């Protein structure tokens, strides 16, 4: 039955002819490759939970009187968007879980993209021929951040509405076109009634489609290039060493999808996120306390705070204060990220193809530079909590603000040489970063003592093996011949990166 179905399909798509080699596709085994997978899987979680949300969410700012089951809000005039999100949270079965999973998945999604990006950066994974894929990935990060902001804005609560107000001001601040952009996007002046429906369609259709398209390109290019890999036994520029798609990698990756989803479900169940019923409906004149955006907006919020109160007045025109931290800074940031592969190639003069990844310590300059730049954004991120810190530490805001203004200059300057030095030390110390071995103390015949290093986990180690070319072995025979082996435990394979 299955056979004949497959046969029917295969006669029409010729999968067995063109797709056979896919079974043998090799995926390098390194934990750091899972980070990108987390991003992919949480995007799938976003799609699934997001579709559920669209069934109940009403993208409209038409005022209605709340009559739902959440008593403290009853009788209040709220927008349909807010009303439906409250109902989604309290009246729809499983609705609150889906909302919270969606929100958690969004935070994990952007987080995984950033960490994935750092991994690629510090290991030199962006070098030729992967420059274009690096740029594609950067675009995906930007789209993910935008879509997260749009989604965050949909429930029309006091905090997200304040965020939209700031976004309006930021758009307005762009020279020449700013006011036009803002008025065209909002369908007039802030707040108007167009913004929720417009954000909605961007959030659930336009940006997800763009992301899916670019993601397909990103992964397609990955298949074309094949994975870059860390140096190890038998790993060369002209091969890929690892485990085969079918069945080993498929089981691991498929399982990892469920793990990611499971963790998202647990977070959505246990850790409350965005309790909009506590914030209340957005009204332009209502003041909200402790306004905190989602974490991936933190660096922008921090930049807005530490920026000195400057503005540039030109004859007849003005470059407003927010332009510098909220337009210029992200503009520079992302353009620098886009350009980095080319800048580095220019600096190093290395334009050859690379499929073997660097260990960060082996490229001290790149690593130190990346660490310093990252530290800068990290300080900005911290600066988004100036008020919270001042409260918590009982010091004046003034002290906290000036500390951050100084820190965001000093920290990168300190991080650079320290990271550089650590890299050089690690690189020059044999065995640095490797698991410590037990010592065996030996007494010689004449009574002298000496120590020698024991085997790593005696009995648990299988030496790193030569890779076997899959198309030349009979994996089926090998799998069927495989018998039970030793007493217990699993093998550990120490890697030798030299």
């Amino acid at each position: 039955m299955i056979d004949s179905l497959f046969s029917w399909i295969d006669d029409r798509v010729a999968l067995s002819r063109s797709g056979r080699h896919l079974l043998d596709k090799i995926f390098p085994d390194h934990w750091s490759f899972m980070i990108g997978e987390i991003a992919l899987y949480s995007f799938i979680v976003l799609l699934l939970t997001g579709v559920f949300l669209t069934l109940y969410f009403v993208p409209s700012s038409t005022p209605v009187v709340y009559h739902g089951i959440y008593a403290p809000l009853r009788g209040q005039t709220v927008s349909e968007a807010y009303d439906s999100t409250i109902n989604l949270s309290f009246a729809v079965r499983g609705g609150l879980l889906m909302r919270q999973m969606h929100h958690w998945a969004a935070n994990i999604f952007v987080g995984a993209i950033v960490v994935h990006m750092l991994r690629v950066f510090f290991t030199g994974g962006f070098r030729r021929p992967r420059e274009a894929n690096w740029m594609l990935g950067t675009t995906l990060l930007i789209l993910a951040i935008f879509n997260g902001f749009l989604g965050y804005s949909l429930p029309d609560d006091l905090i997200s509405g304040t965020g939209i107000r700031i976004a309006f001001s930021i758009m307005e601040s762009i020279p020449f076109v700013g006011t036009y952009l803002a008025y065209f996007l909002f369908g007039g002046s802030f707040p108007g009634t167009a913004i929720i429906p417009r954000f909605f369609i961007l959030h659930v259709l336009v940006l997800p489609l763009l992301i899916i398209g670019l993601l397909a390109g990103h992964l397609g290019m990955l298949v074309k290039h094949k994975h870059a890999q860390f140096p190890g036994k038998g790993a060369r520029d002209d091969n890929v060493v690892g485990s085969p798609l079918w069945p080993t990698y498929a089981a691991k990756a498929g399982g990892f999808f469920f793990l990611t989803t499971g963790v998202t479900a647990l977070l959505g169940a246990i850790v409350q996120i965005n309790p909009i019923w506590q914030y209340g409906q957005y009204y332009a004149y209502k003041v909200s306390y402790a306004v905190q955006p989602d974490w991936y907006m933190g660096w922008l919020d921090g930049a807005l705070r530490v920026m000195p109160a400057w503005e540039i007045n030109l004859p007849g025109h003005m470059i407003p204060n927010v332009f510098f931290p909220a337009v210029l800074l992200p503009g520079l940031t992302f353009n620098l990220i886009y350009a980095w592969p080319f800048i580095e190639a220019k600096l190093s003069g290395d334009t050859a193809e690379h499929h073997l990844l660097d260990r960060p310590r082996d490229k001290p300059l790149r690593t130190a530079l990346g660490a310093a730049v990252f530290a800068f954004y990290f300080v900005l991120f911290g600066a988004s909590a100036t008020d919270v810190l001042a409260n918590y530490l009982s010091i004046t805001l003034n002290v906290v603000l000036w500390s951050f203004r100084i820190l965001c200059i000093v920290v990168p300057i300190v991080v650079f040489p320290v990271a550089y030095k650590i890299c050089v030390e690690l690189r020059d110390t044999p065995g640095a970063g490797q698991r410590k071995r037990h010592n065996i103390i030996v007494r010689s015949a004449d009574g002298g003592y000496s120590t020698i290093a024991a085997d790593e986990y005696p009995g648990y180690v299988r030496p790193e093996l030569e890779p076997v070319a899959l198309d030349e072995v009979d994996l089926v025979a090998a799998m069927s011949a495989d018998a039970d082996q030793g007493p217990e435990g699993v093998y550990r394979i120490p890697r030798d990166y030299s």
Partner: protein
Amino acid sequence: MPEVPETPGADGPAGNGVGRHPHPGAPIPIDSPQFQVAAKNPRRVEGVVAAAFVASFFAIAAFGAAYWQAASSWVLGVTLGIALGTFGFALVAWGKYLMPQGPFEEPRPQMATTKEEKDEFVADFATRGKIAVERRGFLVKLMGAAGAVLGVVVAFPLIRSLGPRPNQEQSLYHTKWRKGAKLTSIEGRAVKVDDIEVGGIITVFPPDDLGGAFSQTVLIRVQQSGNIVTQPGRETWGPDGYLAFSKVCTHAGCPVGLYEELTEQLLCPCHQSLFQLSDGAMPVFGPAPRPLPQLPLYVDSKGYLRAQADYDEPIGPGFWYRGGANNEYAQ
């Protein structure tokens, strides 16, 4: 079933099959460690994987029951999380410990194409195109013209119909405050001199724009009586101890609503800009670059607070066309 290897010297145990080592002449037998699973005792790992699948089964059953009973999102999420998590764990462990770990390898061709490949492609592309185009140069020009017009004409209304031009509603430079407009609370009640005690603050609007995002104004009673002059030229703006300022922060537009009576300062909750009321709401801390515009007030004969006029400058955050030729105040 196992295919017979053709490598010279491939002489593994009969019927056992032999894999070929990537390096020529070094056959690897099928029982080499590359083909072994990572578990030393697969039975044990099997047990763990089985337990995880069973846990997943029960957890998802519990989720189903919880959903049916409309249990809280806490119960739903925990059962679902455990079900998915154990299922995923089982699969990962299965793949990691009970399937061949290799390492295996596959070749990776260079990405860069050769000069011949490129030349051939480019030549084909260019010559075909050239022949097609050269014969029909007239058509090409027409196509270009039609395409350009199409692009511009389609894009223009598409973008243009999104919203009005910025200044069409006048909202960039003006608010709804007019001469004589009563200071009105959000509930629609006009404010009288005796309504607010010293240190009190309320948000007021012109009566025809209650809740307006741009005309929102804070009204503060700083002292019991007397004119308050915050800046030269504003001699009559603060009657009977009252001051009114735009509530829209000049930094990024948040409502500035936290009043510190002791220091007579307004705080913006978004990025903590502080405005000194007694100095014309001059920013004294934080990123706000300009003072909050002050609304000139007067008290009418019945004791109602009213605006003398609209604000004398654009309120809120800056924008490119603020000030100068496009600013109607300068005209």
